């Protein structure tokens, strides 16, 4: 648990954080949002003592951060910055294991950890571990930035506009990934953004700051339904781009881009392994040019799978399926009617585009709801 108690910070007599009180539960995904210059970064960086506070206190699990060595404190708190800041003189593996190295993990353990971490974001160890940051795309770089923060298994991760510099598609898939990781690893995340879409998508709780103070701290749904202040309402109006009604949304607007896929030539065991790695109970089957073939589910492998055989005979094609251009409503109807976990979205030429899940639905409903209000 993290507790901010009357935290104050001024620069040259000008207060920029004016008495913040905030309690964050373990495993919570908290978003700090607000206009530029309102003190989000300062609030965040006081937690790992990159910025000293003037008065007040911050407790982590009841213990004041002032009682801990800043360096030691920071090794227990992951930190991801917008400018990514991967060390250009180090390989991907060296970058990821910076903190473990300082914690004196032995080489073997560091290597294992690097493999584990790269697998979390579906990057192949042999392909990427020995690349340098400048040999990666922006999205890949920030994935490594996130892994670097996660490396020593800190319970808390701080992120300061981590996806702000990425293109929208990459940003979207990184958002999915980070949310997924946060839930799977049960991290407490404090995430700064000025993008309301991002906040709604990711947050368990949104903390709206303005002029060094917290105006409202609430779940995305609640903040959308009843913004506590005109500034918040206006901010959301300006920043929520997808406030169309539900029926203006298409499936491609609301789908998740990142889905676990597998090729039909894979064998059952590989398939099971991939499922357990990704913690899913079904995979989408696509051939080499991403043409959608069906899905393969863990029950079918259990019931009818033969070790060593390919998954070809197990592919199901009776899953609900929509096209990218169809109304989102259609996907929702299918989700509800067929009690499916997800609906597959394909392009007009039958290539896999993404999936729509219940959580994509609630996100879309949230913005639609606010759009009406």
């Amino acid at each position, binding site marked *: 648990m993290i507790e901010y108690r009357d935290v104050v910070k001024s620069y040259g007599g000008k207060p920029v954080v004016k008495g913040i009180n905030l309690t964050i539960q373990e495993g919570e995904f908290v978003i700090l949002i607000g206009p530029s210059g309102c003190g989000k970064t300062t609030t965040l960086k006081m937690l790992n003592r990159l910025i000293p506070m003037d008065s007040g206190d911050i407790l982590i699990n009841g213990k004041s951060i002032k009682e801990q060595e800043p360096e030691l404190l920071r090794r227990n708190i992951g930190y991801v910055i917008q400018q990514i800041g991967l*060390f250009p003189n180090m390989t991907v593996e060296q970058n990821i294991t910076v903190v473990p190295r300082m914690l004196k993990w032995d080489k073997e353990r560091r290597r294992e950890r690097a493999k584990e971490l790269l697998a979390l974001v579906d990057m192949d160890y042999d392909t990427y571990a020995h690349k340098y940051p400048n040999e990666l795309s922006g999205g890949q770089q920030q994935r490594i930035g996130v892994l670097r923060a996660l490396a020593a298994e800190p319970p808390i991760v701080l992120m300061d506009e981590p996806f702000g510099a990425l293109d929208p598609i990459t940003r979207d898939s990184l958002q999915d990934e980070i949310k997924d990781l946060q839930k799977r690893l049960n991290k407490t995340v404090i995430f700064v953004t000025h993008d309301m879409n991002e906040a709604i998508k990711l947050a368990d709780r949104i903390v709206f700051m303005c002029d060094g103070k917290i105006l409202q701290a609430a779940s995305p749904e609640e903040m959308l339904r009843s913004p506590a202040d005109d500034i918040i309402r206006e901010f959301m109006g300006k920043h929520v781009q997808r406030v169309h009604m539900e029926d203006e949304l298409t499936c491609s607007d609301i789908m998740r881009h990142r889905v676990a896929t597998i090729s039909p030539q894979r064998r059952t065991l590989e398939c099971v392994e991939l499922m357990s790695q990704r913690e899913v109970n079904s995979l989408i089957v696509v051939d080499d040019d991403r043409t959608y073939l069906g899905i393969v589910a863990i029950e079918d492998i259990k019931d009818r799978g033969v070790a060593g055989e390919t998954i070809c005979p197990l592919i199901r094609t009776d899953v609900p399926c929509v096209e990218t251009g169809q109304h989102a409503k259609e996907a929702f109807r299918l989700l509800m009617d067929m009690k499916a976990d997800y609906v597959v979205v394909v392009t007009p030429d039958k290539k896999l585009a993404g999936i729509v899940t219940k959580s994509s639905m609630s996100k879309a409903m949230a913005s639609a709801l606010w759009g009406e209000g």
Partner: protein
Amino acid sequence: MTLQHFMDTYALDLLRAIFVHLGYVILCVSIGTVIALVLAVLLTRIPKISRFIMPVLSVLQTIPGIVFIGILFLYTGMRPRTVIIALSIYAIFPVLKNAYSGILHVDDKYREAARGCGMSQWQMLFSVEFPLAMPSIFVGIRMTTIYLVSWTVLAAMIGQGGLGEFIYRGVGTNDNRLILMGAIPAALMAIGLGALLDKIQKKLTPRGMREPEQSTQQSQLNAQEGEI
């Protein structure tokens, strides 16, 4: 005296002079570099002292070598250490200037990331700031080395050997051949050491820090692959 005869007479002397010269250069560049790096770190950590150190060094720098060695000679005598002290001091400045600006120009995002990872000041210095300032430090070392090859000629002024011996003797006896015998190896030494340092630098620079050419193309390629 035929050229053949001339060479026979001086070959051994020349060989020795080259070694002595090279020895001075390598030793003094090394000492100067170490001092320069220490000073550069101090300067970047405690900016206030740069107001003191920089002017002192640049004044020292402007004193002609001949005067400086002459003065130092009065105190430390006609010994190799006079030469070593003087040349080492001269070696400091180019390295210091480049190392200082190299460290100063390390992008703050790397410092922020380093601090955020929990690095101490020293860890940050050795694993981030020095490596990132390395190209600039190397420019300084290269410059210093080349200067020092010519400044070491002064060693002969107080009888401490090196290629300067030939030059002074040549000037004294008005023998151009002797002058060339000192000057040509010195010039070659400067070129050779410069090339050697370039090689070392190339070897030491991690792939991630080499200048664009293919690496940017590579990253563009990666960017196009994109992600679904």
